[in-house]
C-alpha cells in the first residue's frame, strides 16, 4: 500500500510542476532597499545599491551566470579574442530596442564604451590598455588593446561602474535621460520615497531559462518599486508584517524572528563576502612589513567574526580569499598566517621590527556595525600584544575621505562581496587606499591580468594570493553570509549579491 501511495505521489509531482508552479504574468512588487541610491547612472558609481536598481533599466554586453562565468547579454556570444589576446571582436544581438523604441547598433555601443572609459572607475581601469574601440559594421564592435588584458570581459559584465549601453545621442554627463535596453524602464523617481520601474514591452529576452544574471529575462511583473527604508530595525519589522515583497539587507540577529513570520521568509546568501583590514603600506607604522606581520599574528579572526556576526550560521573562518565554491579558491600563503591569535609572540615580533609604541590608527565606521565590532576586538588583541591603539570611529563619508590621505591612518576596515573576477578587487590596484606597490605585487598581478587562458589564470591567482599574504597588503578576516527577506508569495528570486527581479513573479 505504501509503495502504491509513494508511486502515486511521485507521479503526481512529476506531472504537477508545469501547471501548479508555472509563473504568471502581472503584479507589482515593493522592494525595500537600504536607502536612496546616490545616482541612477551605473557608470558613475561603484555603490552596490546603484547596481541593484539600475541593472533592471540598463544592460551590459556581458553578464555573469549562476556559476559566475561571463555570459553574453547584449552581445550575441562571448567575444572572439585574437591569438595575441589584443583584439576582441564582439558580435551584437540584433532587434534590441532602447526604451525610446530606437534600435541599438554598434554606434551606440562604441559611444557608450567611450563614455565608460572616461567616466566609470572600472572603465578608467581598462582605458590605459585600450588602443581603439570601433564599429566594424552595424552589429559588430572591435576593441583593440595595446597589450593583453584578461579581465576585460569581466569588467564589461559588471553591474556597477558598469559598461551599460545607452543610445549614442544620449551620452550626457550627468545622465539626464535614463534610457536603457533593460526589461524594466524608469517611470518615476521620487527621491527617498520610491523608484518606480515598469515593464518594457519592446524588450527582447535571450532564449531559455534564467541563469544567474544571464539567460532569459521573462518580465513576469508589471512593476517593480524600490522603496528606501534606511533603518535596519524598520526593515525587519516591515518584513515581519509583510509590507514589502523583498527586503534587502536584514541584520543577521533577526533571522530567527523572520522564520516565525507568517508572511515573509529569510533568504540567506551563503557566503556573501569577506571583511578585510587594509594596511597603509605607504606611510606610518604599518609601512614596515614586519609590523604588519606582527599585527596579523596578534589577531584572533574567530573572535572578530563571532563579535561581528554572532553565530557560525552566518560566518565561516576561511583564510583563502575565495571560498571553496569559487574556482579561484586556493590556500596559497594561508598556512601559519591566518587566525594565529598569538599576541605574546606578536608583541615580541613588533619590538624586533622596531616598533616603539607609536599609535596604530584604526579607521572604522558604524555605518556597517560589523566593521565596528571587528575593529573593537582587533584593538583589544593589539593592546594585548603591546601595541598602542587609536581606534577612530567616524561616519562612512569621513572614512572614505580620510583613507585617501596617506598621513591619517594605518588600518581601515572594509568588506567586499566575492567578485567573480579577482582582478576587480580594488585593493590590488596600486592607487587604491593602502597603496600596495611591491615588486612581488607587480610580478604576480601583472602576470595574472595579462594571461587569457582560464586554467593558467587560476594558477596565477594563487601567486597573487601568496603575494597578498607575504606582503600583508590586507588581512582577510573570514567569510560572512548576507540575509534578506522575501514574501512567501514571491517566486523566482534566487539569493544574489545584487538581487534582481526580472524573473520574479507573485503566486496567486
Amino acid at each position, binding site marked *: 500500500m505504501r509503495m502504491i501511495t509513494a508511486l502515486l505521489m511521485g507521479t503526481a509531482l512529476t506531472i504537477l510542476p508545469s501547471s501548479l508552479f508555472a509563473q504568471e504574468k502581472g503584479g507589482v512588487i515593493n522592494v525595500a532597499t537600504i536607502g536612496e541610491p546616490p545616482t541612477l547612472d551605473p557608470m558613475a558609481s561603484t555603490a552596490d545599491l546603484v547596481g541593484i536598481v539600475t541593472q533592471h533599466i540598463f544592460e551590459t554586453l556581458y553578464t555573469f551566470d549562476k556559476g559566475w562565468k561571463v555570459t553574453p547579454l547584449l552581445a550575441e556570444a562571448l567575444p572572439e579574442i585574437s591569438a595575441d589576446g589584443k583584439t576582441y571582436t564582439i558580435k551584437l544581438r540584433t532587434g534590441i530596442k532602447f526604451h525610446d523604441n530606437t534600435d541599438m547598433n554598434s554606434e551606440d555601443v562604441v559611444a557608450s564604451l567611450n563614455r565608460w572609459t572616461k567616466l566609470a*572607475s572600472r572603465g578608467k581601469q581598462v582605458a590605459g590598455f585600450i588602443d581603439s574601440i570601433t564599429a566594424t559594421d552595424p552589429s559588430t564592435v572591435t576593441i583593440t588593446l595595446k597589450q593583453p588584458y584578461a579581465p576585460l570581459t569581466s569588467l564589461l559584465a559588471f553591474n556597477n561602474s558598469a559598461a551599460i549601453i545607452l543610445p549614442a545621442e544620449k551620452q550626457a554627463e550627468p545622465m539626464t535621460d535614463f534610457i536603457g535596453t533593460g526589461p524594466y524602464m524608469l517611470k518615476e523617481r521620487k527621491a*527617498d520615497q520610491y523608484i518606480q520601474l515598469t515593464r518594457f514591452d519592446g524588450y527582447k529576452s535571450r532564449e531559455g531559462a534564467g541563469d544567474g544574471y544571464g539567460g532569459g529575462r521573462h518580465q513576469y511583473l508589471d512593476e517593480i518599486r524600490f522603496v528606501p527604508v534606511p533603518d535596519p530595525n524598520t526593515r525587519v519589522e516591515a518584513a515581519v508584517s509583510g509590507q514589502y515583497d523583498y527586503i534587502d539587507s536584514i541584520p543577521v540577529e533577526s533571522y530567527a524572528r523572520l522564520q516565525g513570520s507568517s508572511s515573509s521568509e529569510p533568504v540567506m546568501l551563503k557566503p556573501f563576502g569577506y571583511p578585510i583590514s587594509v594596511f597603509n603600506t605607504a606611510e606610518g607604522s604599518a609601512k614596515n612589513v614586519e609590523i604588519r606581520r606582527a599585527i596579523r599574528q596578534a589577531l584572533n579572526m574567530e573572535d572578530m567574526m563571532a563579535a561581528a556576526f554572532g553565530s557560525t550560521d552566518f560566518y565561516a573562518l576561511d583564510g583563502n580569499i575565495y571560498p571553496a565554491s569559487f574556482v579561484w579558491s586556493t590556500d596559497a600563503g594561508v598556512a601559519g598566517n591566518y587566525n594565529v591569535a598569538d599576541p605574546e609572540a606578536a608583541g615580541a615580533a613588533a619590538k624586533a621590527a622596531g616598533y616603539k609604541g607609536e599609535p596604530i590608527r584604526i579607521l572604522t565606521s558604524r555605518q556597517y556595525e560589523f566593521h565596528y565590532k571587528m575593529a573593537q576586538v582587533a584593538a583589544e588583541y593589539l593592546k594585548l600584544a603591546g601595541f598602542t591603539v587609536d581606534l577612530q570611529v567616524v561616519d562612512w563619508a569621513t572614512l572614505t575621505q580620510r583613507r585617501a590621505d596617506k598621513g591619517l591612518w594605518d588600518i581601515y576596515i572594509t568588506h567586499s562581496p566575492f567578485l567573480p573576477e579577482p582582478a576587480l578587487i580594488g585593493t590590488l590596484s596600486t592607487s587604491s587606499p593602502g597603496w600596495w606597490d611591491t615588486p612581488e605585487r607587480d610580478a604576480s598581478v601583472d602576470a595574472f591580468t595579462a594571461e587569457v587562458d582560464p586554467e593558467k589564470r587560476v594558477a596565477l591567482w594563487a601567486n597573487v594570493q601568496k603575494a597578498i599574504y607575504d606582503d600583508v597588503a590586507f588581512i582577510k578576516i573570514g567569510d560572512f553570509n548576507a540575509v534578506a527577506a522575501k514574501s512567501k508569495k514571491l517566486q523566482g528570486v534566487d539569493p544574489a549579491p545584487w538581487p534582481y527581479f526580472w524573473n520574479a513573479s507573485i503566486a496567486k
Partner: protein
Amino acid sequence: MIRYILQRLFGMIVVMFLVLTIVFVILRVTPGDPAAVMLGPDATAQDIAELRSRLGLDQSLGVQYVYYIGQVLRGDLGQSIFLNIPVTSALLDRAEPTFFLTLFSLVIASVIALPVGIYAAYRRGSFVDQAATTLAMLAASIPSFWLGLILMQFFAVRLNLFPVSGYGGPGSTFLDRMYHLTLPAVALGVVSSALILRFTRASMLDVLGEDYIRTARSKGVIERRVVLKHAFKNALIPILTVLGLTAAVLVSGAVVTETVFGLPGVGNLVVSAVLRRDYPVIQGALLVIAALYVLINFAIDMLYLAVDPRVRY
C-alpha cells in the same frame, strides 16, 4: 508697529546671513567628501579629484562662499549633488509629509495637553492632577522614535492596521498618504504633549490665583466660564509660546522619527544629505528651517496682540 515689523525683518535677514555663513563654514571644515560618497567604495583618488573639480569643490573656501552668497541672493539655493535637481524642488517635494506630520502631531498634542492641563490645574493636588503630571513626566522622558517603534510593533506588525514605513507608492491618494502618517504623528504628538501639558497647567495655576478670577467667582459667573474664558484666555500667552516652539521643532524635521518610519520629509532629507555630504541640500534646508523658526516666532508675537490687548509693540 510698522517700525517693530521692520526691525524684526532686519533681524531676520541678519539671522539668515549668520546661519548661512556658519553652516557653510562648519560643512567645509567637517571631514567627508561628497565626491567620494557618490563614486562608491572602489573609486580611485584620481576619480574623486576629477569629480571634486567638476563640482567646484576644488576652489578655495572664499571663492566657494562668494559664489554661494551670490546664488542665494538671486534666490537660487543651488543644485543637489546627488539628486541632480534644484534644492528648492527637493525641499518642496519634502514639504507635504513634514507639514502634515507637524500639523497632526500638534493637533494630537493639543487635544491631549490642553484639556488635561486645564483640568489638572483646576483640580490641583487631585488624583487626576498627580496622574497627569506623572504621565507628562513619563512622556517627556520617552524618545519619540522609541514610542514610534513600540506603536509600530503593536499596531503595524501585530495588528497589521497601519503600514510600518513609507509614504504611499505611485498614484497614492492624499488619504492614503495621511494614513501613513498616523503612527509617527501619534508618537510625536504624545511626546510633544508633555511639555504643552506642563506649561498649560503651570500657566493656569498662576492665573487661577489672580484677583480677577476671585472677582468673577464672587460675581456669580459660572465655573466653566471662569475657567475657560477668564482664566484660560489669560493663560494663553505662555501656551502659545510653547506651541509655537513645538511647531518649529517639528517642522524642522522630526529627524529620527521620519527616518524610523521611512517618511520622505525634510528631516529625512537633511539626514541623508548629511550622510552623503550633499552640501547644497544641507545649506538650503538649514536656511529654510532657520527662516521658518524666525517666521513662526514672529507669527507668535503677532498672535500675542490678538490674545492680549495689553501687548503693544
